[in-house]
């Protein structure tokens, strides 16, 4: 039995600014699969995350990406999100003056409206958020504050994880989810991510460390260098990378 394809990237080329960073990427992610992309710095991993989410300054130049059968590049940033694409950001920004809880309610209601559902009422929303926040050790005070205002790296990632849990994406792209995390925070965040694995939801985990993959076991591991995938394998590939480094895999690839 083959699972439904969620993300289908064919021969993708893309620029960051004027510079070509992604050079002929192919990747298929099916329902329920966890893919890890590993690779050296500057290989274009984060560019991939930004191209998928539609961030300004990142332009696909050729090739195609289909998300749940839809041409991803025909959708704007918010449509991609409402279709179920979630980008957990490497450096979540602080937005002074926008209360996190208000922001999250707008985000959830945007998705519900997009799906033709009624907006959630405040008491149900608060119950839902309170519940998930408790599991991530997020205090009520943190929920009331402005988005990420004054939060540590670990707290920011917990807040990102909370958003992901509430918005229930079809595909979560985690861009360096482990950066800035101590061991305890890493466990909390990866626990949150694991709790979303339901055999349907798919994950694309961008990382350069094995640490996160010890917590979230991937089905597929890809080595990303020079703007494309140079080697794919199962979780053992990540262990091999950890032991040997990237050098053997990227011979002849320009980074």
């Amino acid at each position: 039995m083959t699972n439904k394809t969620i993300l289908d990237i064919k021969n993708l080329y893309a620029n960051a600014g004027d510079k070509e960073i992604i050079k002929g990427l192919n990747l298929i992610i099916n329902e329920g699969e966890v893919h890890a992309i590993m690779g050296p710095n500057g290989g274009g991993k984060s560019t991939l995350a930004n191209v998928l989410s539609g961030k300004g300054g990142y332009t696909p130049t050729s090739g195609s990406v289909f998300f749940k059968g839809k041409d991803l590049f025909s959708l704007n940033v918010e449509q991609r999100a409402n279709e179920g694409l979630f980008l957990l950001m490497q450096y979540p920004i602080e937005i002074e003056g926008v209360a996190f809880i208000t922001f999250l309610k707008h985000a959830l209601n945007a998705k519900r409206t997009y799906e033709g559902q009624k907006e959630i009422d405040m008491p149900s929303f608060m119950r839902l958020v309170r519940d998930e926040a408790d599991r991530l050790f997020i205090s009520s005070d943190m929920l009331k504050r402005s988005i990420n205002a004054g939060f540590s790296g670990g707290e920011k990632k917990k807040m990102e994880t909370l958003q992901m849990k509430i918005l229930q994406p079809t595909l979560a792209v985690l861009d360096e989810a482990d950066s800035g995390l101590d061991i305890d925070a890493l466990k909390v965040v990866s626990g949150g991510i694991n709790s979303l694995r339901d055999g349907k939801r798919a994950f694309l985990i961008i990382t350069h460390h094995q640490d996160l993959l010890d917590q979230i076991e991937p089905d597929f591991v890809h080595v990303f260098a020079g703007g494309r995938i140079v080697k794919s394998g199962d979780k053992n590939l990540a262990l091999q990378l950890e032991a040997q480094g990237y050098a053997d895999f990227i011979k002849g690839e320009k980074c």
Partner: protein
Amino acid sequence: MLKLPENITLKETHIPALEALRQKGKAAFSGLPSLKDEAFKYTPVQSVLTDEMFQTNPCCDNFDGCACTQKQLDFEAHRFFFCDGTLHEHFHPMQGMEVLPLSEALENHEASGHINKFDALKHPFTALNLSCLEQGLFLRIFQTPSNPIVLFYQAKQSGLKNIYNVILLEKGVSAEIVEIFEGQNEAYFTNVVNEIFVAKEASLKHYKLQNEALNAVHMAFNRVEVKSKGCYESCVFQKGGKLARHELDVCLLEENASAFLNAAYKIKGNTLADTTTNIAHLKPFTASDQLIKGVVDENARGVFQGKICVAQNAVQTKGYQLHKALLLSDGAGVDVKPELEIFADDVKCSHGATCGDLNKDELFYLKSRGICENKAREMLTDAFLKTVFEGISNPDIKNLFENF
């Protein structure tokens, strides 16, 4: 140049003190200011004020039936209503306050001594206001009121709404006054003068929400005098009008007097919103702080003119001023003119101005969570303005600003 309109008919001609002020205003008014006048160089009043705006239309006499008075608030307040520029003179007696229509106050010898104590005749709209003097409220507060005082100004017809209020806070009194301006879609001209005295150790919190009709002109001149250890705090939010100016002229008359002025404007279309302040530090140890933020969209224009004067003997003075604007479209603009005139040594004064677009990364972050462009922009502009209202201590009033 527009001469004093001839078609203004005024009542209460039998009151000598009132007539005297009218004559004083008439003599001083030398026409509307042009762009050549320094104080109005960015604010083209001549091109927006039309003859229609100077007509006087009768207001309804039926207090109970008047829609103006049906305005609801979520909190307890002493409420006063100006309907088309005319004060509804049905006051309940209020403890700790003397409340009179301005014309009656002018008949009363003791009260009239407090009216028009400043030489504002150089100010063209104050001279114009005095020449048409009839309506206004005289409010002397001698005991701290338990609730805020709310002044509603409603415009339903075209024409002139000429109002002169006098607000006196006696020693040690603390009061909150909220002004709310609203209007239906007519070409009218609101010309308000507030003459405010804050006595020794008294504290006035003066709030204003301005949402005039988009083809109306709004001119408000607020003249404030603050005595020793007195504090004048104001927060203003302007949204409406074709041309609207909030002008604040504060004299810190004695030592340790202070003034805190916050203002926001959020405008679009062809609206021009002007915030003009003039703070005079006349004695040592006086302090002022101003934060003005504007969000300007479409072809709207913001104007900020902020002057801080420190007199020669006013040492140990603190005077700060900051103006920040968000320009949301190519057609939007701001004119900013800070002026510091410092004649004393040993003072701390600063001014700053910034101007820019919304932060792209913040916008992307909100949209990447499914929030549409318009909503995301609204959330970020609200967040930008929010800091202006943060210091409002009364949660009911803060709520009015945040949901305005």
